[in-house]
């Protein structure tokens, strides 16, 4: 700023939160791009003053909209982010969340905030984001040449409501403060006007208060500013001000719609972030202690398992335990669930591969083991089972009309019924797992036990599942003995 010559007193000066010259502007860098008498210029000035008075210039991030105020970054000597049409509250949310020390305001027109950006403003307000919103309501789309806005008044003519806004065709003007006042979270909502000097002073106070709330960490504040647009309204600046004063305030009554600044609690500062070394623990990435027994020899192993049944029968979990055990034994594993509509309709299945070589495809088209917990699954997949493979079926026998392919071992055991004897039919999947391990001799007992511990978090279930595993092993031994007779 130039030095003040002696003999002069400064009565009025450009706020420090404005640039001296507007270098981001292409030409006429000494003046704004706003039309004479436009409310945006006045609103900018009041915001800049408030920033000066609060001494927060370095901390401010202004988020500009799409609309006549798209270029606020020409003027505010603060951090600036330019947002897409209507999205400023979402952008401001994220700036503030990641930089809580910043003082973030969005500056939006009525098309931006109350039409295309209704979802963003409503939800930012509802989350109670600790941001400040300046909402300039001039009842038209200024930038695009005077189309109807959601705040256009009944009867008001615009280029897209040439006969005047008609409630039956265009609905009624949208009342943003009243709408947001229906929410619990906002701390401060006030509507002000730029119709005369008195109104302007009230607006100035509201603007400062809305910023102060954020500095104090109180939460969401919005000031709606009824603002003249002489150009689109085709009025001279004085007439336009008069319209704000006489007409607009009747449709949009100025006033405080929410003020909880007195009782609002200051948001706690975020806790200090953890040290980087703590991340593996915080991300649950610590190793599961397990060393395979020295004598464990998987040999050439290529298990292709399909587990299938009703939702709730634990088929996905059974697959997970198998895959986890394989991994504990340093084998390559994959687990692929069916997911999708079939989950809702009740059936689910998963593909599990366990191999001592790198697994190419995790999809199992020709299983070496089919674990069928219900009849539809058996019918669906039994024909796919590979020669030399196994079918375990959750019943005393296969249905009369179902035949396993040639060379496939079949074991039919009512696993769910057995689990019922433990008082928990849902443990049928683990009974089946016990039987599978006993019958096929795959994987090691220790690995399965450890895998169960990893996947079963509740102590009651772990105890139950251990017993279920034994029950399954016993049942399989009996079946095998019987088969040998």
């Amino acid at each position, binding site marked *: 700023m130039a030095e003040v010559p002696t003999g002069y007193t400064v009565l009025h000066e450009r706020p420090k939160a404005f640039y001296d010259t507007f270098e981001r502007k292409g030409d006429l860098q000494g003046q704004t791009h706003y039309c004479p008498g436009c409310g945006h210029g006045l609103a900018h000035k009041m915001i800049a003053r408030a920033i000066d008075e609060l001494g927060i210039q370095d901390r401010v991030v202004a988020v500009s909209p799409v609309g006549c105020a798209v270029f606020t970054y020409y003027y505010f000597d603060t951090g600036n982010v330019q947002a*897409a049409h209507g999205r400023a509250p979402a952008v401001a949310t*994220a700036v503030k969340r990641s930089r809580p020390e910043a003082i973030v305001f969005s500056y939006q027109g009525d098309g931006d905030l109350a039409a295309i950006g209704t979802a963003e403003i409503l939800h930012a307000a509802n989350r109670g984001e600790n941001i400040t919103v300046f909402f300039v309501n001039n009842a038209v789309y200024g930038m695009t040449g005077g189309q109807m806005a959601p705040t256009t008044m009944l009867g008001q003519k615009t280029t897209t409501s040439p006969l005047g806004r008609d409630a039956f065709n265009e609905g009624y003007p949208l009342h943003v403060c009243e709408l947001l006042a229906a929410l619990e979270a906002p701390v401060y909502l006030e509507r002000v006007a730029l119709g005369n000097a008195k109104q302007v002073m009230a607006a100035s106070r509201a603007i400062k208060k809305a910023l102060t709330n954020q500095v104090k960490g109180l939460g969401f504040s919005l000031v709606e500013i009824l603002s003249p647009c002489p150009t689109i309204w085709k009025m001279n600046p004085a007439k336009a001000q008069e319209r704000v004063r006489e007409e607009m305030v009747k449709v949009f009554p100025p006033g405080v719609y929410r003020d909880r600044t007195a009782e609002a609690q200051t948001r706690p500062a975020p806790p200090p972030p953890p040290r980087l070394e703590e*991340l593996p623990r915080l991300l649950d990435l610590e190793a599961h202690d397990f060393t395979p027994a020295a004598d464990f020899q998987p040999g050439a192993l290529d298990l292709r398992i399909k587990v299938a049944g009703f939702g709730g029968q634990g088929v996905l979990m059974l697959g997970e335990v198998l895959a986890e055990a394989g991994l504990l034994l340093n084998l390559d594993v994959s687990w692929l669930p069916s997911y999708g509509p079939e989950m809702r309709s009740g059936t689910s299945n998963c593909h599990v591969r366990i191999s001592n070589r790198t697994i190419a495809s995790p999809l199992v088209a020709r299983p070496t083991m089919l674990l069928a917990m219900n009849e539809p699954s058996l019918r669906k997949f039994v024909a796919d089972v590979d020669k030399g493979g196994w079918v375990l079926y959750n019943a005393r026998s296969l249905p009369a009309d179902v035949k396993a392919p040639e060379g496939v071992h079949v074991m039919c055991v009512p696993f769910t019924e057995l689990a019922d004897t433990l008082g928990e039919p849902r443990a049928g999947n683990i009974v089946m797992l016990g039987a599978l391990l006993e019958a096929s001799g795959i994987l090691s007992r220790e690995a399965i036990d450890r895998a169960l511990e990893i996947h079963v978090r509740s102590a009651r279930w772990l105890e139950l599942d251990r017993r279920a595993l034994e029950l399954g092993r016993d049942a399989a031994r009996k079946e095998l003995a019987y088969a040998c007779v």
Partner: protein
Amino acid sequence: MAKQLIKGNEAIVKSAILAGCRAYYGYPITPASEIAEAAALYMPRAGGVFVQAESEVSAVNMLYGAASAGVRAMSASSGPGISLMQEGISYLAGAELPCVIADITRGGPGLGNIAPEQSDYNQVVKGGGHGCYRMLVLAPASCQEMADLTALAFDLADAYRNPVMVMADGFIGQMMEPVEFAAQAHPPGSQPWAVEGNRETRLNLASSIHLEPDRLEEHIRHLEQKYLRAQREAVRCEHYETGDAEIVLVGYGIVARILKAVVDEARAEGIKAGLLRPITLFPFPSAQLRALARQASVFLTVEMSTGQMVEDVRLALEGRKPVEFYGRCGGNAPSAAEVLQVVREVARRSTPVLIPGAIAKTEVCHG
């Protein structure tokens, strides 16, 4: 670090945090929701931000805000949500803001279904938003790559100041495999151009506007140079048995896993097959494909779509060799057996093939 049995979707989040990501904004959608769920749990633990946005439109604009503030940030979605994000992606690219988005693809168009498909290729790789911009696109084929390529995505995003997409099909997102995570965590940093709300960054501006045509052209040329640089420096692909391949299969994501099994089986029958798996879909491994055209007599692109990437394969080969196509869609994955049958046909006669009862497309069908 020890290997973890972990879902692809969850691996993305843990790897992102280890890569210094400290902000997640997203909206639930199958089959990507586990990413949001894991982020909701782990981001706050790591001192980061998690917000469930009101829509993907908001989520991508929150990404824009977080990226403006200079933090490593991410989101994730699937087809319908990625469609909604296109506007924001265009703004991110225009304002040169780095961030990572994961697309766990499902069936379309419209609501389609939630089963895996690869039909987001065009909207992601070609860009569904307005303007001359590209996204860098990484295509993991395993849970390990979900972790590795997510970490890489953050580095590329910063290096190119551009949004980067990690695009995986629903299978890769939903399945579990052993994953070894990075041993070193990347500290959350800041960027000299960021708008952080402090004295040091007060003069910074994040914006995609350039009113003057000359200025905008200059800006677009600058973006163009970045994309050309990516084409020179950032291409990644995997060659599998391509050394002497006469028939080169081309596929990405889960399809590439199936194609590896196909290559093995074809070779067991004496058919010299190989696989080129693009890992970056943009930049596309065009030069690598052209190099293979010197020895191979035919290419077979396999996708879970009616043929989207195949156009890039054709563009890359510029008519040097015939390009066949085989696709399944609607949530169906091609089985190794059915692709093997196509490979046999293609190998037997390098004329167009049609497999009755399956969606097989040929040069002729493509017109």
